[in-house]
Each structure stands twice: as C-alpha cells, then as structure tokens.
C-alpha cells in the first residue's frame, strides 16, 4: 500500500466515529423518514404496515392547497423580516460592544447572551404570560398605569406577527451578536486608522471596511439562521396556536400548517411524505441561497 493510500485510510479511520455519528443522527433519520413515507404506517397499521409506493405523496399534495401557499408566503415574509432585523440590530449592538474604552463590556456581553442560555420553551411562555397576557402582562400594566384600555396583543394576525417577531429576535439575537462581535474583533485596526487619516466618516468606514471584511465570516451563520427561522415552529405555535391556549390569530408558517394538517393525524406514512416534501423545499432553498453571484464566481 503506498503512503498516500495509507494516509487516506487513516484519515477515514480517524473520522469514523464522527462520520458514524452523523450517519446515525442525521442521515439515518432522513432515509428512514423516506422509507416510512412509502408505507401505510398509521395507528391502524402499526405493525403490519406495507409499502404502498407514492400514494402518500399523492395525498400530501392536497395539503399543499391555498392554505399551504398562504403559509409558505408568510414563512418567506417571516424569514426576511426576522433576518433583516436580526442583522441590523445585531450589527448595531456588536458595534456598540466594540466601542473603545467601553466600561463593563463583559457585563453587557453576559446580559446579551442570557436569552440564549434559557430554554426556548420557557422564554416563549414567559413572554406570553409575562408580557403579552391581557390580564397580567407587563405591557397592559403599563397601559393601565397611563389610563389606557388593555390590548389583546396576540389576538389579531398583524399584531401577533409583530409579537412573534419580537420574541424570535429576543431568542436569536445573542447568536448573531456573538458572531458579529467576533468578526468585528478580527478586523485589523490599522485599516480604520488609515481610513481615519484619509478623513473617512463612520458610514464610509462601515461600508468600505467593516461590512466587506465581516461578510465572509458571518455568511455561514446567516445561512444557518435563515434555515432556523424558515423552519421555525416553537415561537409561532406556542404564542398563538397551542391547543388549549389559542389566541385568535391565524398566522401559520409551513411547519405549523403541516403540523395541524398532517402530524396530528397519527398517520406516519402521510406525515413522513409531507416532511420529505418540506425537506426537499428546504434543500432547494439552500441551493438558491448558496448560489454565488456570477461576478463572485468569476473572481474565484
């Protein structure tokens, strides 16, 4: 065996535990879901299920009706609004954390990371009861103290969408702030010094130095966050749709829509087919977002 082959073999051997882990927790569930989607597995055929071909996919397409298209458009709007706000707010906060001679920098960083340390479920319900509740919520207590009528924050579609966005930002900002803060610190200070000597304003320094230099570093985090936001379920479901505590708002993302129209049926074959279709949509979405602009490709 020549040395190159031997090295390759060792490289695979060393990576084997990680590869096996990825196989077990990422690849296997996808393949298994794909297999189940071709069967009639449901409560009536729990042990004696059999392969029924693409029947579930045929039925699943009925879920992708007008309601699904509306949910899909809401999901895109939800993703765009959240991503734009996240990037802007995180950039501003991270820039403020990098102000020279800022006192108590670590205290602010700890406070900003705090929402990330709390379980999402707890945070969401805290917001729901602690802030938005019309009887006991802080927002209505403030309104009452200035003589205003209480507001049902999660009752209408637009208001509920805004409230969900606020909670999602609260949950997601720590990650983005951390990444942008790290990226900002990696920029060589001499660039700014030269720019200052040339008389560049803050806006010019941000536009021509900061943004181009952090773009490559934060790009993977942005892609990850786009996906997390796109397939967001907890925030919208727990704030507005949870069984037993619905609020009257009718906002659905594709995940909450699929949950209410398929997953509650206990038909695992059918639900798996819908999961696979959403998975394919996400893969296509990923391919589109990963496409490099032509000029950038040419440069590479």
């Amino acid at each position, binding site marked *: 065996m020549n040395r190159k082959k031997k090295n390759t073999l*060792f490289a695979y*051997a*060393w990576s*084997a*535990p990680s590869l*096996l*882990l990825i196989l077990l927790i990422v690849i296997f569930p996808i393949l298994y879901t794909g297999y189940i989607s071709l069967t009639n597995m*449901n*409560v*009536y055929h*729990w*042990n004696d299920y059999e392969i029924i071909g693409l029947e579930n996919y045929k*039925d699943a397409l009925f879920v992708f009706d007008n309601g699904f298209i509306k949910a899909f458009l809401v999901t895109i709007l939800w993703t765009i609004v959240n991503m734009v706000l996240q990037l802007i707010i995180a950039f501003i906060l991270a820039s403020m954390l990098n102000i020279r001679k800022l006192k108590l920098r670590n205290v602010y960083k700890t406070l900003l990371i705090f929402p990330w340390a709390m379980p999402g479920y707890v945070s969401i319900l805290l917001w729901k*009861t602690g802030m938005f*509740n*019309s*009887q*006991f919520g802080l927002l209505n207590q403030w309104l009452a103290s200035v003589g205003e009528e209480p507001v*049902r924050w999660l*009752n209408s579609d637009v208001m509920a969408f805004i409230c969900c966005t606020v909670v999602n930002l609260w949950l997601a900002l720590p990650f983005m702030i951390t990444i942008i803060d790290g990226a900002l610190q990696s920029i060589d200070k001499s660039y700014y010094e030269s720019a200052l000597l040339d008389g560049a304003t803050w806006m010019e320094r941000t536009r021509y130095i900061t943004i181009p230099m952090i773009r490559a570093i934060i790009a993977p985090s942005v892609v990850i966050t786009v996906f997390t936001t796109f397939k967001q379920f907890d925030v919208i479901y727990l704030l507005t749709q*949870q*069984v*037993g*505590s*619905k*609020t*009257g708002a*009718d906002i659905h993302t594709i995940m909450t829509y699929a949950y*209410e*129209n*398929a997953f*509650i*049926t*206990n*038909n695992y074959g*059918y639900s798996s087919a819908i999961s696979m279709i959403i998975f394919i949509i996400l893969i296509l979405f990923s391919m589109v977002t990963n496409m490099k602009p032509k000029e950038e490709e040419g440069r590479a």
Partner: protein
Amino acid sequence: MKKICSLLMICCLLAGMLCGCGSTDSGGSQAEDGTTTITIWHDKEDAIIAVLEERLKVLAPEINIVFEKKSDLTEALKMVGNDPKAAPDMYFFAHDKIGVYAEMDILAPITDIIPKEELDQYMDSTIAAATYKDEIYQLPIYYETLLFMYNRLYMDDSEVPETTEELYAYMEENTKGGHYGFVEQHSTPYYAAGWINGFGGYILNEDGVPGLDDAKTIAAVEYHKKFVALMPGETEYATVNTLFSEGMAHSTIAGPWMIPTVRAQGMDVGVAPMPVIDETGTPIAPYMGVQGIQVLKFAAENKKDAVEQVLRVLMEPEVGVELAQASGCAPANEACYELDEIKSDEVVMAMKETAESAVPMPNIPEMDVMWTVAGNFLTDVNMSGKDVAESAADAQKEAEKLIESMQ
C-alpha cells in the same frame, strides 16, 4: 506505536458509541431469584403514586413494583409499546388513548386477566369509558369531571346559580372593575364540551363521526357566546385559574385538581352542581376522564400471575378511599360510596353527582384530531368573532378531511 494507540482509541470510541444503542432488558417473565418486576408508567402526582406504592407493598418481595413517571407518556408508548425490552408492563393513565393503543395492538383486554363479572363493582360510566370495540381495556381507579366552584368571599351559598340564566345575570352584575363573575377556558374543547353535551350536541360520536356542524352543537356554541363576552380574552389554563385563585373571578368551572391549591391559599371554596341550561333543561355535562391501569400485551402473556395480583390489590375499595383522602380523587369503585369517609367528602360527592350527567371522553383514535379542529372552531367563533354556522361547516369539513387522512 502512536498509530496503534490512535486506532485503539478509535475502536474504543466506536464501541462506546454503539453500546449506547442497546437497551436495558425490562422484559422477560421472571428473574433468577424468582421475583417478578412489574414496571408501571404514569404521569400522576406523587401523592397518588405514594398511595398505590404503599398498598402494593403487600406483594413484595415476590413482586417488585416500579413506578416510572413519564411526562410524555403517550408519545413514548407509541414509540416503544411493541418492544417488550423498552415498554412498561402496565401504564396508569386516562382512558382517552385506549383506542389508539388498542388499534396499535399493544394492549391486552383487562378481561383476559380479571373475569368480566368482577368488574360489575365499578360505575357503569367508568366501564363504558374503558371499553373500545366491545373489549374492556382498563381497570378504572378513579375518575375526574369538571366542577362548578365558587369563592365564598364573593359568592354566597344562596347566590350559587342553579341555571345558566342565573349565572349570566350574576356575571352581568359582577363583571366590573377587574373582577369577573365567572371564568372558564371558554375556547378549549375539553371545557366547551360541557355546554355542547348539555345541548345534546357532540364533538365526536362513538362511530367516529364529527358533530361540529350538528344543529345542537351550533345552538350550544351560539348560546355560549354571550357568556364568553363577559369573560377575559385569554382562554388558557394559567390565566383562567390565576384569575380564580387570586380572587379576581368569583366562580369557575375547573378540575378537582385545583381545589387543594386554592384551599392552600386560604380560599373558602365551595363546590356546587353544574347549572342547568335553561334552553334544554339539562345541566352542563362535561367530559369525564377515567384514570386507570392498562396492561400491555407482552406483560399479559408473560407475567399474567403477577399482573393479576397487582390488579387485585388495586381493586380493593380501600385504595379508592385512600386516593380520595390523599388527592381528592373520586373512586370508580361503587363500593367506596357506601363508606363514611367518601360520603362526607364534599368534592368527591360533587363529582359523583356531576358524573351522572357527564359524558365519557371519546376513546377512539379519531379524537386526537378533534382537539385541534374543535379548538380552532371555538377560537374562530369566540375570539375572532366569525359566524358560528359558517365556522362550524368549515370545521366539520376539516375534521372529516383529517379523519380520512388518518387511514
């Protein structure tokens, strides 16, 4: 040497990872020392399990009982119910999932272990709740119904409404200044079902047919709307119960599990029969949930003797009495109601009275989708102000579509 070490470490790591994929063996019929372990999954509070553990100690050391609390019991059973190595031998849970597990073929009829005639000692409604496709799958232990409760600080015993119109008049008079005359989880199907059943309507009948667009269901939801208008916008458990326990709501319809909490807070809470609906002359008829023991097929086949002994201990009327004293549970065993300890318990006797008009929660698999669809229907009507008949027709269509999708 370095390479050999690293290869050895890789092998250890792989072995370590893979051994996590194994499972502990809780199956098998008997241990080598002749003892049998019976594992019971449950989702109950400690006080209830302490009573059962104490009573089942008589079976030791031959039979060792292990209670395991599972917060996600229903989903966990779906995953491992047919795997004897991971599944429990029995589970202690409400009757409403019986249909799902019976269809999955993981449950054994209780009559395979206890002769049917011995179950005559239980209230008919509890046995009806435990029956799915003519087979009894549960040994009932206790049952729960919603109760009409009031805070004596605000509502005198003489003011307790006997009819829904009296209740409405009380609400109109007392809902002001941050106080509510009456609150309930008005848009949650489990709670709204009392009004629907009281009108003769239904969410789902025993044949698995949804009744959301039934004329009586529509009439009930339409009538209920005027009460909802005098209640807070939020319908969830935390808000409604906090309003009552904090003294901001004078009365409520809630589960018996709330009574110990409000009593501990010093509230003089009264329990009264459900108000009679003026339109129909029948009381509000909430769903009844029966909590009991279900036996998994593998245990019934391989540990039959031990399972039978466990069930026989739990059939003793004293168990019902102790559960009532420990946690206010209403025993399913009729014999308990002959005993003074039970007769003198105001809450248990109120539940017994309500149970006479209560409707057992449907235990068929189709009910799983109805909680969501009926919840959406009630939310549309009560919180989004949509037309009742139109919403009912849409919800009915949705329910039928989802039920079809279950197959």
